[in-house]
């Protein structure tokens, strides 16, 4: 009986230690769930749900985390994997498509840096990408090195560079089209 109680007490202590370590690590990288969620979800409620799912999966997967590896890379992988699943689950093509109406075009045609329109435009551009390119761009925008982006996605750093160049060219073209339309 006494041993059983001691074991239960040890389990509680182990859990609270793991929880404290997890919370501390997540606090240092708390931007990851939010940034990934905002790249895959346009609607604020969806973004919050997606971010919560990411944190849930991070906590659930935490026992498998190898402390010898960077927490950020592991967290990015989980965040993107969860966000892609969230994005694909129950979303219709029409919901996924980028709604670029006349009003949006007006707002994003010539944005001032730092304004809401610039942010809208950034989201419009990101939303036009497929799920994998979107992850790549989010990591790039967050200033992650090519080696880490490659590690998160499971491709080579050369592949990352090539794909990023293509994306940059495509985004410039989209941006030009929008500007010339208005």
């Amino acid at each position, binding site marked *: 009986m006494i041993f059983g109680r001691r074991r239960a007490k040890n389990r509680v202590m182990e859990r609270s230690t793991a929880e404290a370590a997890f919370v501390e690590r997540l606090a240092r990288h708390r931007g990851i769930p939010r940034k990934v969620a*905002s790249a895959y979800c346009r609607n604020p409620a969806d973004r919050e749900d997606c971010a919560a799912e990411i944190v849930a999966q991070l906590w659930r997967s935490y026992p498998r985390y190898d402390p010898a590896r960077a927490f950020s890379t592991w967290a990015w992988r989980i965040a993107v994997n969860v966000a892609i699943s969230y994005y694909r689950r129950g979303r219709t093509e029409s919901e996924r498509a980028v709604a670029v109406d006349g009003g949006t075009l007006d707002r994003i045609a010539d944005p001032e840096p730092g304004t809401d329109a610039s942010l809208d435009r950034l989201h419009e551009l990101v939303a036009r990408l497929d799920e994998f390119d979107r992850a790549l761009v989010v990591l790039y925008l967050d200033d992650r090195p090519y080696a880490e982006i490659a590690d998160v996605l*499971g491709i080579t750093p050369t592949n990352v560079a090539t794909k990023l160049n293509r994306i940059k060219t495509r985004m410039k073209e989209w*941006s030009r089209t929008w500007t010339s339309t208005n």
Partner: protein
Amino acid sequence: MDLDELKTLWAANDAGFAANLRLERAEGLSAKAERRIWFELALDAVAILLIGSFAADTIGEPRFAIPAVLLGLYAIAFAAARGRQLVALNALDYGEPVLQIAAALRTMRAQRATAVRWIALTAPLLWVPLQIVGFRALFGIDAYATLGIPYLLANALFGLGCIPAGLWLAERYGPRLAESSLARAFADDLTGRTFTDAIAALERARAYAREG
């Protein structure tokens, strides 16, 4: 607008999004998913036990035991398909690279679609064994004597006819249903659309990893 110019904007983007990431809520989500898995497995186990018990009780009467064994095999196949899917899902390590997880999830989706398709297509054939076992187990009625062989044969034929009719309906009206609805998902599974989509998505993930 250049992608490099957007980096500062991206960093500022975080500020406006004030999600309160609480661990208690995260735990709640995990526990809910876990409970659902166990509940479904418990239901499968109960069904298998009940059918198995009926088959054992009627072992000396093949006309009842054979339909029960058929139902039991069906229930076991159903539970195995679901169990396999659940084990695979639980074993999935989301800490692996994105393209690897995408490929694994898409393969699982294709497998699930195949299982659902076979289960749904063979289900109408079980209508007659279900009547025989159900009447006997619940009311003690002998369906052969009470309903009659012609009635049971007509039901078997009706079940057989349901298969092409179901496929036709799913093919014709499935795409008109709302894409997010359960009925649409079932129709897509039945006609093989889910399987085809999953394989195409799997190929896209593999191509993404290959393309330089």
